[in-house]
């Protein structure tokens, strides 16, 4: 399969998302016009599989959209809204129009009264709130409320200045849409999607850094002449490449092992660990390359680099996934690590 970020789909989405990039000020908060364009182009639906449609719902295509969104630091909840659309369809319901927020919890929903969902991505801008929570016998329930019934009780931002909101709703306003296989499946999809956003941001960070070293001149020539700078370039390049290789394989496992949740889970965990480490390495090396100018608000570098640090915290942070993976390795017996890596028990 082709490496993530190299397909025509990626190029098209990248072009669409790139159009809004000229003014960095526009890239904070939420960009409803950009979201509207994405929706009209159908790029929020690539994960949707209609009943009877064998071709739809490609995680590989989703990956291409996500890497473009990550690279452009697009101020839209592409992960949550795309996944929500897919889950709603999976439950046999129609996708509502507007912006859909997604919240995932491991705690069963209370049966009455008001509940507060905290730190919902772009929650203050959403038209619909979709909730995934545990159902009976290991399954998951999908609920949805129109945001007319939802109250924003607190707003905050992530490390990368992306909007979050605490949303209060009475459980009677939450319509049950249906049942899904498990909460864990949704956890995996969210975590995988976050890793793919990071791959895009890593690639963009790398491209910016590489270009800068070629054209920034000091001491009579481009700074790439200095080995100390070459070492920094290698760090960013390697960080992006290692993350890409692990995420390419993660996508393969998701697509190929649709019934083998364990294999998918292992690959997602490894991808989250690797992207988390690459995030810090690329962050430090790229900012070192750019010097003071890259540290400014005006320069675009921080848009990607802060997202790298922020996204590694989301949908279970990278260290949580490292612990999960380590536990699985230890529980797999003496040759466990090698068996997991080679996919051969």
């Amino acid at each position, binding site marked *: 399969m082709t490496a993530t970020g190299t397909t025509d789909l990626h190029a098209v989405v990248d072009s669409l998302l790139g159009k809004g990039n000229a003014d960095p000020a526009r890239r904070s908060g939420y960009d409803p016009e950009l979201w509207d364009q994405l929706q009209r182009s159908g790029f929020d639906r690539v994960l949707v599989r209609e009943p009877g449609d064998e071709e739809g719902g490609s995680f590989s295509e989703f990956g291409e959209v996500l890497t473009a969104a990550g690279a452009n630091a697009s101020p839209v909840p592409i992960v949550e809204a795309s996944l929500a659309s897919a889950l709603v369809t999976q439950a046999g319901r129609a996708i509502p129009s507007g912006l859909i927020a997604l919240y995932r919890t491991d705690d069963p929903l209370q049966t009455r009264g008001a509940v507060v969902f905290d730190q919902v991505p772009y929650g203050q801008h959403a038209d619909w709130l979709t909730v995934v929570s545990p159902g009976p016998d290991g399954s998951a329930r999908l609920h949805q409320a129109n945001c007319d019934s939802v109250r924003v009780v607190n707003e905050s931002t992530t490390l990368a200045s992306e909007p979050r909101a605490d949303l209060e709703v009475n459980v009677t306003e939450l319509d049950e849409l249906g049942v899904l296989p498990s909460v864990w499946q949704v956890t995996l999809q969210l975590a995988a999607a976050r890793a793919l956003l990071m791959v895009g941001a890593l690639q963009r960070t790398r491209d910016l850094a*590489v270009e800068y*070293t*070629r054209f920034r001149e000091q001491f009579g020539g481009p700074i*790439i002449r200095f*080995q100390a700078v*070459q*070492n920094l*370039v*290698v760090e960013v*390049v*390697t960080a992006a*490449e*290692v*993350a890409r*290789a*692990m995420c*390419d*394989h993660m996508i*393969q*496992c998701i697509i*190929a*092992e649709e019934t083998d949740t364990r294999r998918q889970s292992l690959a997602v*965990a*490894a*991808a989250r*660990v*690797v992207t988390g*480490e690459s995030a810090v390495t690329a962050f430090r090396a790229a900012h070192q390359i750019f010097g003071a100018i890259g540290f400014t608000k005006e320069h675009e570098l921080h848009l990607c680099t802060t997202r790298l640090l922020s996204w590694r915290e989301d949908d279970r942070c990278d*260290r949580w*996934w*490292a*612990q*999960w*993976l*380590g*536990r*699985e*390795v*230890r529980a797999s017996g*003496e*040759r*466990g*690590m*090698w068996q*997991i*890596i*080679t*996919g*051969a028990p």
Partner: protein
Amino acid sequence: MTATSRYTALRTEVRDFISAELDSGGFVPMCDSWLNGHDPLFSRRLAERGWLGMTFPTKYGGRGRTALERFVVNEELLAAGAPVAAHWVADRQTGPLLLRFGSESQKHRFLPGIARGELLVAIGMSEPDSGSDLASLKTRATKVAGGWEVNGTKVWTSHAPHSHIVVALVRTTPRQNGDRHAGLSQMIIDLASDGVAISPIEVMTGKAHFAEVSFDGVFVPDEMLIGQEGDGWKQVTSELAYERSGPERFLSTYPLMENAVTESGPNSDRAIGGYSANLWALHLLSQGVNAALESGSVEPARPALVKNAGTLLEKRSVEIARDLLLDAVAPSATSQRLLRQAQLAQPGFTLRGGTNEVMRTMIARRWTA
């Protein structure tokens, strides 16, 4: 089916062989087994199973299998710490070198022996004054009747005392202004020839895989020149892609890691998960390069990136293993032995196969050209 799971049956075959070997005391697992585990009888047992010369065409004694199948077999052997050093360079690069650049006569003469694990090969590249700057080498081959006369000294020539031939990079045309890579050639030199002197060099691990090989008026027949005179640099560059991209660039410490994980205490999950994920990623990168080599050529910066990242992971793994064993309830004598081996061996990880500094220059150049 993912690219990985396609090879499950082959991995199982190799693992069964390794189990049987371990049960019968065929070998003791070690770190750096591809460098320190020199066991010609083990190499022959592998050859009998068809796991040497796998990618050589059958008419030269090979099995006509793919580069990825070979990669899988070697990964399994290194993960088990199996003693593959005796045939390692012959199988990895000398065979492919002859297949690509050798004459028909050379292919028929040398490839079957490599595939049987009988012909042991050393690589003569580095010299006392030419390490990273290989092109500055001084070993000279002067034309004489029927062949060449070779004078000079090679160093860091692994396993030369136990090898039959050395593939030596020599200067056949004096250096002119301009292209410093021109005028170099590779020759197959019989180590039993008059004028060859070999002395082992012991390293700080206590092992003596290194050697110095001096050539004092050594006669090399014409038919031992590989390919065209003057094509030495081109040949070496293509060999290096194989040398840099293999599982020996990230699995050298795996036997230690496996023991450390098995013996680790309850608070080790995060460290184990961190290492496992990184090892997985390097395995995928390395596999990717080998898959690309299968279809032809690969941009040199790609194996360089794998080598740089993989060997740095090997170094980090030594400290991770140490931490795991410090918290272990009952660290075994085996683990302690492997940890000591790895600690002493680690300078070599990032020096051999082209130092990481040179690798980083190549990577930076490719990305900023």
